C-alpha cells in the first residue's frame, strides 16, 4: 500500500509538458462552476421573487424565459465540464510507461487517473464557487423589472450549492472514467478508424422538412395580439431552430468540407478538410454552441431593433419585460461566448495530446510547426465561420417577418449582430490560441 502511494506521489507531479493538462481542466471547471451557479441563481430568483402578475401573464413569462435560459445554458456547461475531465484523463497515457517500469498495473493507473481528474475538478469547483461569490456584487447590479436584481436574491440556498458542486464533481469522475475507456491508443498514437464514418443525407431532408413546418407555425403565431404568446413562440422557434440546426449541421459540415478537400491546394487546407471529414459530428459538437450564440444574436438584434422602432409600451410591466429580455439575451450571449472559447481551448489541447506521436513524427519529417498549427486551427475555425453565418441566416429566415421589419426600421441592428458575431469568432480564436503552447511542448520533448 505504501508503495502504491509513493507511485501515486511520484507520478502526480506534472512534467513540464503536462502542466496545461492540469491547468486547462481546472480553469475550465472553475468557469463551468461559476457560470452554472450564476445561471441557477439568476434563474431561481424569478421563482423565489416572482414579478407582480397582471392580465398579460408577465410573471409567468419571466419564469418561462428564466427556465429556458437556464436549460439552454446547462447543457453546454455540462458538456464543457465533461471535456475538461476527459482532458485530465489524458494524463494516464503519459504515466503508463513510467508506471509499468515501476510494476504498477494498468488498473491501478486508471484508478489513479480518475482520482486525479476528480481532485483537479474539486479544485476547479472550489475556485468556481469563489468566482461565483466574487461575481455576485456585479451581477446584483443588473437591472430587472426596473430595479437592480440585488444581492439578497442571488444567494443560492446552501443545499442547492452543495448539490450543484457535488453533481459537477460526479460528472468529472464519470467523464474521466468514460474518457479512459474511449481513448484506446493504437501504436500510431491516434484513434484510428478503418473507414471514415458516414453522415446520412437523410439528416438534411429531415432538417428541411422540420424547418418548413417550424416556419409555418411561427408565422401564424406571430400575428397573436398577446406579447406573452409571441414571447413563447419566439422561444419555441428558438428551441425548434436549434433542433433543426443540430440535425442538419453535421451533414452540411461534411458536404462543405468535401468541397474544400477537392479544392485544397495547400497542405493546411488539405489537412483541415480531412480533419473535419474524419468526424463531422465531432466537428459539429465543438462548434454547435456557437450556433446557439449566433441564433441568439440575430434574435437579440431583431428584438432591440423592433423595441427601439416601436417606441414605449403603455403597460409598464410589458415595458420592463421587453427591456429585460434584451438584458437576458445579452447575458446568455456573453456566457455562450465564454463557453465556446473555453471548450475550443480544452478540446484542442486534448486533441493535440491525443496525437502527440503523430505531431512529433510530422515535425521530424520537416513539416513546419506553423503548418500543423494552422491546419489544426483551420479545422476548427472554418466550421466556426460556417456555423456562425449559417445559423444567423437560418434565424433570419425563421423569423422573417420580424427580421425584415427590423432591417427596414433599424439597420443599426445589423451592426449589433455583426459586432456580436465578430466577438464570438475572436473569442474562439483566443481559446484556440491557448492550446498552441501545448503543441509547442509536445514537439519540444
Amino acid at each position: 500500500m505504501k508503495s502504491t502511494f509513493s507511485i501515486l506521489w511520484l507520478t502526480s507531479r506534472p512534467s513540464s509538458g503536462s502542466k496545461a493538462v492540469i491547468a486547462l481542466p481546472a480553469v475550465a471547471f472553475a468557469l463551468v462552476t461559476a457560470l452554472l451557479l450564476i445561471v441557477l441563481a439568476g434563474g431561481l430568483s424569478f421563482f423565489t421573487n416572482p414579478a407582480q402578475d397582471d392580465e398579460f401573464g408577465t410573471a409567468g413569462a419571466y419564469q418561462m424565459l428564466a427556465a429556458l435560459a437556464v436549460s439552454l445554458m446547462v447543457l453546454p456547461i455540462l458538456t464543457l465540464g465533461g471535456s475538461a475531465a476527459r482532458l485530465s484523463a489524458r494524463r494516464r497515457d503519459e504515466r503508463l510507461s513510467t508506471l509499468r517500469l515501476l510494476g504498477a498495473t494498468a488498473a491501478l493507473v486508471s484508478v489513479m487517473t480518475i482520482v486525479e481528474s476528480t481532485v483537479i475538478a474539486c479544485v476547479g469547483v472550489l475556485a468556481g464557487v469563489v468566482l461565483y461569490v466574487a461575481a455576485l456584487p456585479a451581477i446584483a447590479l443588473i437591472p430587472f423589472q426596473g430595479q437592480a436584481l440585488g444581492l439578497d436574491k442571488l444567494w443560492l440556498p446552501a443545499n442547492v450549492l452543495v448539490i450543484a458542486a457535488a453533481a459537477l464533481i460526479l460528472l468529472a469522475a464519470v467523464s474521466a472514467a468514460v474518457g479512459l475507456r474511449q481513448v484506446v491508443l493504437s501504436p500510431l498514437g491516434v484513434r484510428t478508424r478503418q473507414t471514415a464514418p458516414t453522415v446520412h443525407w437523410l439528416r438534411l431532408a429531415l432538417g428541411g422538412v422540420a424547418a418548413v413546418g417550424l416556419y409555418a407555425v411561427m408565422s401564424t403565431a406571430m400575428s397573436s395580439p398577446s406579447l406573452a404568446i409571441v414571447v413563447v413562440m419566439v422561444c419555441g422557434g428558438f428551441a425548434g431552430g436549434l433542433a433543426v440546426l443540430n440535425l442538419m449541421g453535421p451533414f452540411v459540415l461534411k458536404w462543405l468540407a468535401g468541397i474544400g478537400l477537392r479544392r485544397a491546394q495547400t497542405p493546411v487546407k488539405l489537412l483541415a478538410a480531412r480533419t473535419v471529414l474524419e468526424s463531422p459530428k465531432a466537428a459539429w459538437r465543438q462548434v454547435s454552441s456557437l450556433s446557439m450564440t449566433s441564433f441568439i444574436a440575430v434574435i437579440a438584434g431583431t428584438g432591440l431593433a423592433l423595441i427601439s422602432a416601436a417606441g414605449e409600451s403603455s403597460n409598464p410591466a410589458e415595458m420592463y419585460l421587453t427591456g429585460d429580455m434584451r438584458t437576458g439575451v445579452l447575458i446568455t450571449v456573453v456566457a455562450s461566448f465564454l463557453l465556446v472559447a473555453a471548450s475550443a481551448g480544452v478540446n484542442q489541447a486534448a486533441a493535440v495530446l491525443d496525437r502527440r506521436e503523430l505531431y512529433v513524427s510530422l515535425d521530424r519529417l520537416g513539416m513546419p510547426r506553423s503548418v500543423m498549427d494552422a491546419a489544426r486551427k483551420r479545422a476548427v475555425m472554418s466550421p466556426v465561420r460556417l456555423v456562425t453565418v449559417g445559423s444567423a441566416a437560418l434565424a433570419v429566415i425563421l423569423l422573417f417577418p420580424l427580421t425584415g421589419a427590423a432591417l427596414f426600421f433599424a439597420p443599426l441592428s445589423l451592426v449589433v449582430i455583426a459586432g456580436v458575431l465578430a466577438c464570438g469568432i475572436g473569442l474562439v480564436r483566443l481559446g484556440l490560441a491557448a492550446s498552441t503552447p501545448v503543441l509547442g511542448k509536445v514537439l519540444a520533448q
Partner: protein
Amino acid sequence: MNTTILSARSLSKRYGDGIALNNVDLDIAAGESVAIMGASGSGKTTLLHTLAGITSPDAGSVNYAGTEVSALNETQRSKLRREAFGFVFQAGLLIPELTAIENVALALMLNGVPRRDAEAQSAGWLAHLGLAGMEARRIGELSGGQAQRVAIVRAQVTGARIVFADEPTGALDSHTSANVMSALLAATAGRGNTLVLVTHDPTVAARCSRTLYMHDGVISLAPAAHPDATPPPVAHPVSTQDGSTFMQNQNWAGQP
C-alpha cells in the same frame, strides 16, 4: 559513388547520467546502404536523429554535403529534413485521416509542388511499389506492410538524397519484412540515393552494403570484415523494373 555525403565528427549526447552517444565518428558515402545494429538503448535512434538534424548533439558536428547541420537553426533544419531527407519509422506514422496518395502528395506539397502534380507523381510511385489501386484507401484500410510501403514512398517521393529508417520492419513478419526491405532498397540505394537503417534483424542488415554495431553509445565495425575505419567497397544493389532488389553482401560477416 564514393564521395562522402554525410559525416559525423566526435558526436556526443547525454541524457541525464546516461550516455547515448560517446564520441562517434562516422562517414557515409553517397549511394551506400548502412545498417546500424545493437542492443536496445545502445544509442541507435539517438545517432539516427542526430545525423538527421532532429536532435542536437551536446558536442561534435554533422556535415551533410558541405552543410554544417549542427550550425543550422530549427527552421533551417526543418527545411533540410523536408527537402533532402526522408524518414521511415517503425510504425509508419502516416496521417490516419488522409488517404495513401494524400499522405505521399503532402510531402511534395510541403515543398511547393501543386496538388495535381503531387498526386500524379505519388500515384506513379505507389504503383511502382505495388500499391496500384490502393491510392484512395485510408491508412487504416492498409495492412502493416502496405502502410510501410506508403511510408517508403513518402520518404522518397521528394527525391530525398538520404533516407533514415528506424526499425522499419520491426513490426512486420519475416515474409512481409523481406518485401518491405526490397522496396526500401529499390527506392533508395537502387536509385543512387543513400539509406541509413536501424534494425534488429540480421537478415535485414545483411541486405545493406555495410553494417555497423552500436554498444553503449560507441560505434564498432563488424570485427572480421572491417579492420579499419575506412568505408569498405560498397556492394551496389541491383534494382529490377518491378521494384524488387537483389543484394549480394560480401561485407556482412556475422551476427554480433
